[in-house]
């Protein structure tokens, strides 16, 4: 069974308080090599059958309509998963 991966990130110009909190946590734990952190979302959509171009197009539409909010987020990837889960 194929899977389609959709990745969504907060827009660069939008404040990401979650990323900010994570960044603070990293510093407290001594991970000092990192600057800003931004937190996004990864969705895995199981496909019945093959991940055809049509399925990918549908995933892209779903990504724009429900999985992301274009006011605050960008869909950065819609692709067929190749890795093992």
């Amino acid at each position, binding site marked *: 069974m194929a899977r389609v991966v959709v990745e969504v990130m907060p827009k660069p110009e939008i404040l990401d308080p979650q990323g900010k909190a994570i960044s603070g946590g990293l510093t407290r734990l001594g991970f000092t090599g990192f600057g800003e952190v931004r937190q996004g979302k990864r969705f895995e959509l199981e496909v019945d059958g093959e991940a055809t171009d049509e399925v990918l197009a549908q995933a892209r539409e779903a990504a724009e309509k*429900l999985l992301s909010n274009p006011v605050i987020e960008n869909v950065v990837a819609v692709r067929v998963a190749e890795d093992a889960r």
Partner: protein
Amino acid sequence: MTAVANDPSVAEAGAESGVSIGVVTFPGTLDDRDAARAVRLAGAKPVNLWHADATLSGVDGVILPGGFSYGDYLRCGAIAGFAPIMEAVVSAANAGMPVLGICNGFQILCESHLLPGALIRNDHQHFICRDQELVVENANTAWTGDYTQGQTIRIPLKNGEGGFVATDEVLDELESTGRVVFRYQGLNPNGSLRNIAGITNEAGNVVGLMPHPEHAVEAGFGPEDGGGIDGQGFFSSAVRTLVSGN
């Protein structure tokens, strides 16, 4: 809460105007009973609506109350924005029906594209609960006609994800067309851009805001300073709008 909401004297007080206002309950809604009570106190009949309903049961206006919806998974209001009842709400709103979204209801109005912009986590990363001063910047909407332009009101605010954001172009348009209905005064509690607390659509029938007018409709229960009833105007405005003949 139940005893107060079922107070028969309050129940009888509603419906004087002949106006009925629906209050939608989603899985996770908290403030539907308070919103219904506010409607009753304003002389209208509250009608309980359910998120899975397909119709609005003939109501004259709709309130999307605060709390949560569908766990607010994905994004606040995102799943609710596509709930079965929202199709009816969106088409009624586009036809001019007064619709008010409070807190999570505001988030739902944005997610269903009835209002522009989005609400994100508070910039200070904390949940905040306080009595909040607002300036009324538009007293011509279906929900603010009983206020005066520039009036300051004080009503409760309680949110974790109340930061209003939109592009500069959208913010400019909202400001230049008078669609900023409320601005935070004294303190911006959540990092909302340009201190925006509430907005309206082009027609002025759909209003969304983060603070909670339904918690400030009866003396002794709202904010201690200023009488605690500054939220009444929302509901009386809607009743007046509907009675005076839309």
